[in-house]
C-alpha cells in the first residue's frame, strides 16, 4: 500500500535564515507592509510503499535522519497525508 508522507523541513530557531530575510525585505518594499517575518523551508512529499501507516512514518523519519534533513541546522516534522490534511 502506498502512503503519502509529507515532510516539512525548516531552519532551527536562532539559525540565520538568509533567504527568508531577503524575501521579507523585498515583500516590504513591494508594498506588503504588514508582513512581519518570513521563514523559508522545504516541503517534501514522499510516496512510501509499506503495509502499515506506522511503518511508513518510521521509514520517513529514518530518511529524514539519513539524508533529507541537516540536523545541525534544520528541524522537521513528518505527517501522513490525508491524516491531518498537511
Amino acid at each position, binding site marked *: 500500500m502506498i502512503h503519502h508522507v509529507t515532510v516539512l523541513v525548516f531552519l532551527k530557531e536562532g539559525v540565520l535564515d538568509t533567504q527568508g530575510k*531577503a*524575501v521579507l525585505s*523585498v515583500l516590504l518594499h*513591494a508594498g506588503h507592509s504588514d508582513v512581519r517575518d518570513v521563514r*523559508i523551508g522545504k516541503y517534501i512529499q514522499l510516496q512510501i510503499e509499506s503495509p502499515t501507516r506506522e511503518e511508513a512514518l518510521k521509514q520517513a523519519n529514518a530518511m529524514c535522519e539519513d539524508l533529507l534533513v541537516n540536523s545541525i541546522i534544520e528541524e522537521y516534522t513528518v505527517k501522513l497525508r490525508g491524516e491531518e490534511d498537511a
Partner: protein
Amino acid sequence: MQASIIVFPGSNCDRDVGHGLRSALGTEADFVWHTQTELPPGTDLVVLPGGFSYGDYLRCGAMAARSPIMGAVSRHAASGGLVLGICNGFQVLTESRLLPGALLANRTLRFICRPCTIRVERTDTPFTRTFREKQILHFPIAHYEGLYFLPGNELLALEKRRQVVFRYASTDGVADDSSNPNGALNNIAGIVNERGNVLGLMPHPERARDMLLGDASGAHADGTDFWKGIRDWADGRLGQ
C-alpha cells in the same frame, strides 16, 4: 550606441559587461541602480547582467524582476528598445514575463562553469545580424539554473514563431543531448520575444576568449562581433 547596465544587489557580471563594451566598442556604459525608476535618456540597449541578484534566493531573478527599474525596462522594450539579459539577466527577463518560460536547476544539480559552444539559429534579430546562420560561437557558461523550460505546447509555439536564437551545439554544429550542458529543452540557450528586441541567453558573451586576450591574440572574435553587431544595429548601420 548608449548602453545602460542595470545593477541589482548581488549582480556580479555588471562590471564585466562594462569592460566588454569598452574593449569591443570603446564606449562607456551607464550603470543604473535597481531603485531608479527611469533609464538614462538616450539609452539604446539595456543589459541585465549575470550574477546572483538577491542571492538567487526564492527563485533566481524573481526578486530582481520586482525592482523599481523593471518598469522602465518594460517600457523601453515596449517601445522597441533593445533589452539583453545574460544568465541571471535571462532569469530576470522570464520572471518579469518579458520573455516566456522559466529556468530550472541544471539536470546535474550542480553549478557548471566551463567553455561552451552555441549555434546561431537566427540572423535576423538585432543581436545576431553579424553572424552566419548555424555559426558556432564560443561563449562560456556559468550557472546553476540554466535548464530552459516551457510547457510542451507552448514550446512548440515558441519554436514555430522562431523565437529560439541560440542552441547548445557541438563544435560541428550538432545540437543533441551530448552537446546540452544543462538539460535545457530543445537545447535552448537563448530566445527572443516575438518582436525580436528582447534577448535572453544563458552563456556569457562578455567572457568570450577574445574579450580577455584581445582579437590580436588570434582568439575567436565571437565576443567582439556580438557587441559590434548590436552597436551597428542600434546605430542604424545595419538594415533594420
